[in-house]
C-alpha cells in the first residue's frame, strides 16, 4: 500500500512504468500484448504465408503438418499465418473504438458537467443507452448499419459512449468543485479555456484508465460481431471470423476453431492484467477498495 502511495507522488510516467514492471501480472500482460502488437506490425515479414495463400491439398491438416506448425484451415490456408495477419484487424477493431470513444466522450462529459441543465439531458439520454445489454446494442446497430469493419467500429463507439461519458462526467464534476476552477472563473477565464485547457488534462487520466480496463471486453465484443458475420468479412483474416469458420469443421478438425480462440483469450487476459496494472498505478484508491 505504501509503495503505490509514494508512486503517485512521482511523475506519472515513471510511476506507471515501474509499477507495471513490478506487478507480475501486468508485466506478463505487457509482454503478451507486446508480442501480438509486434506480430501485427511486422506481419508481412514474419508470417510464413499470405493470409489467403491456400494449399488445397493439405486442407484441414493438423498442427505439426510439415511447414505448417499450427495446421491448416478448411481452405488449406496456414493457420499460423492467418493468426499473424489476423492480429492486425483483431487488435484494431478492439482498440480503435475504445480510443475514439474516449476522445468523443471528453467534450460531451466536460460540457455535461459544466452546464447543469444540458448535462441533465445528456445523462438521461445516456441512461437510455445503459438500458441495453452492451453486446445486444452493438449487434443491433451493426446489423442495421450493415456488415463491415468500419460499421462495426462505429457501432462499438456508440455502445461505449454512455460508459465513457459517465466516467468523464464524474471526473469533471469532481474537478469543477476544486478551488483552482473557482479561481479561474473569478479572473474571468473563458469557459472554453477552463474546460478544454485547464480541466481536460485532469479529466483525461480518468478516461484513459477506464479505457485500458475495457479494452479486453471490447476485443471480445468486436471478435463476437465478426463471429456473427457483422464485422470483418471473409476472406479477411481476424480471430473472431477464424473461430466462426472453424466452427463449421469442428467435427473433423477441432484445431481450426480452437487455436484462434485460444489466442483471443490470451489477448483478453493480457489486456485485463495490464488494465488492472495501469488502474492500480494511476489510482491507488481503487486498489484499496477492491483489494485486487
Amino acid at each position, binding site marked *: 500500500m505504501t509503495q503505490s502511495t509514494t508512486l503517485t507522488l512521482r511523475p506519472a510516467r515513471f510511476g506507471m512504468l515501474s509499477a507495471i514492471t513490478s506487478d507480475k501480472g501486468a508485466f506478463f500482460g505487457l509482454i503478451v500484448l507486446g508480442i501480438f502488437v509486434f506480430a501485427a506490425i511486422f506481419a508481412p515479414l514474419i508470417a510464413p504465408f499470405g493470409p489467403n495463400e491456400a494449399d488445397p491439398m493439405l486442407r484441414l491438416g493438423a498442427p505439426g503438418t510439415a511447414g505448417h506448425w499450427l495446421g491448416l484451415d478448411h481452405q488449406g490456408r496456414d493457420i499460423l499465418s492467418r493468426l499473424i495477419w489476423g492480429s492486425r484487424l483483431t487488435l484494431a477493431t478492439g482498440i480503435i473504438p475504445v480510443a475514439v470513444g474516449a476522445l468523443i466522450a471528453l467534450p460531451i462529459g466536460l460540457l455535461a458537467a459544466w452546464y447543469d441543465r444540458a448535462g441533465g439531458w445528456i445523462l*438521461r*439520454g445516456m*441512461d*437510455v*443507452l445503459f*438500458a*441495453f*445489454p*452492451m*453486446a*445486444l*446494442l452493438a*449487434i*443491433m*446497430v451493426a*446489423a*442495421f*448499419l*450493415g456488415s463491415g469493419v468500419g460499421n462495426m467500429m462505429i457501432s462499438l463507439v456508440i455502445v461505449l459512449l454512455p460508459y465513457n461519458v459517465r466516467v468523464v462526467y464524474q471526473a469533471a464534476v469532481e474537478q469543477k468543485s476544486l478551488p483552482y476552477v473557482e479561481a479561474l472563473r473569478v479572473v474571468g477565464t473563458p469557459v472554453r479555456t477552463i474546460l478544454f485547457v485547464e480541466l481536460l488534462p485532469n479529466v483525461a487520466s480518468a478516461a484513459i484508465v477506464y479505457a485500458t480496463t475495457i479494452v*479486453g471486453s471490447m476485443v*471480445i*465484443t468486436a*471478435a*463476437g460481431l465478426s*463471429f*456473427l*458475420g*457483422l464485422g470483418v468479412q471473409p476472406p479477411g483474416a481476424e480471430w*473472431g471470423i477464424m*473461430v*466462426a469458420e*472453424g*466452427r463449421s469443421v*469442428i*467435427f473433423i478438425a*477441432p484445431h481450426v*476453431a*480452437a487455436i*484462434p*480462440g485460444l489466442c*483471443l*483469450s490470451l489477448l*483478453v*487476459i493480457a489486456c*485485463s*492484467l495490464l488494465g488492472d496494472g495501469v488502474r492500480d498505478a494511476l489510482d491507488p484508491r481503487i486498489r484499496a*477498495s*477492491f*483489494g*485486487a
Partner: protein
Amino acid sequence: MAKLILRRLFGTLPVLLGVSFVVFVALQLVPGDVARTILGYNATEERVAALRAILGLDRPILVQYVTWLGNLARGDLGQSVALGVPVLTVILDKIGASLILMGASFALVLVFGLLLAALSGGHHRSPLDRMIVLLTLVFASVPPFWLGIVLLYLFGLQFRLFPISGMYDMANPGGLPDLLRHLVLPAVTTAVSSLAVVARVTRGRMIDVMNQPYIMTAKARGLSRPRIVYVEAVRNVLPTYVGISGLQIGYLFGSAIFSEIVFNWPGIGLQLYQAIIQRDFPVVQGAVLAIAAVFVFGNLIADLIAAALDPKRAT
C-alpha cells in the same frame, strides 16, 4: 419498501420509452431504402413500394414513431418480413426458451460466484485463493462463442456426456430430465464470464470485510473459522454481491445470444441472429426490445433486493 418499489417502477417508464425510441430510430441507420434493403435488388419496384407502405416508411419520422409506439402499446410489433407472422408471435414463441437458459445461467452465476468469492476472499493469499483468482481471470477472458464451441467439442463430441443441439431430443423428447441435459452446456457457456466477474468483485469486498473489527471480535470470541467466513463475513458482502450480480444480467443476455447460436438453442438470441441474416428488421427490433425490457425489469428487481438487504440504503 412499497413506496420504493412504486417509485422505481414509475422511474422505469421514461427509460422504457427511451428504449423504444432508440430501437425505432436505429432503423434509420440502415443505409438507403429500408424496404429495398430487406427485399434485395431483384425485387420489383411495386413490391418495394408495397412493403414501404406496410412499414409506414412513406410518412414523416415522428408520425412513424407515434404510430409505431401506439401499435407497440397494443402489443403490435409489426409483421415479420421473412416469416409472414406477427413479430409478437415470434417473440412469445421464443422468449420462454431464452428465459429458461437465462434463469439457469443466472443460478450458476449466483451459486458459484458467491462460493468462489467466499472460498478465496475468506482465505486471502492462501493457495486456494491464488488458484481461484487465476481461474476467474481466465473465465472472465474467454469469449463465449469460443467457449461454447470448446465445450461442445469436449463434452458433446469427445466424451458424449451432453447433447450439443436444441432443447429436447428430436427423436425421443423426454420432459424435464431431457431439458436439463440439453441445458447444461449452453448455461455454462453463458454463465462463465459473469460468474468470474461476480466472484472477483465479491472477493474484493470479502477481503475488506475480513479485515473489519467485528471479524476480529468474532475471532477473539473463539468462533470457528468456517462460521466466521461463511456466516459472519458472507452476510456482510451480500449487498455488494447482489449489486454486482444484478449488473451481470445484461452481460448474460449478451453471452446467451452466442450460446444460443452455438448450441442451436431455440431462443430469442438465435431468432435475432437468423433475423439479422434474413434482414428481417421488424423481428430484429422486436427481439432487441424484448431483451431490453426484460433487462430493465431484471435490473429493477436486483436493485430492490439490494436495497432490501442493505439497511443503510433502504430509505
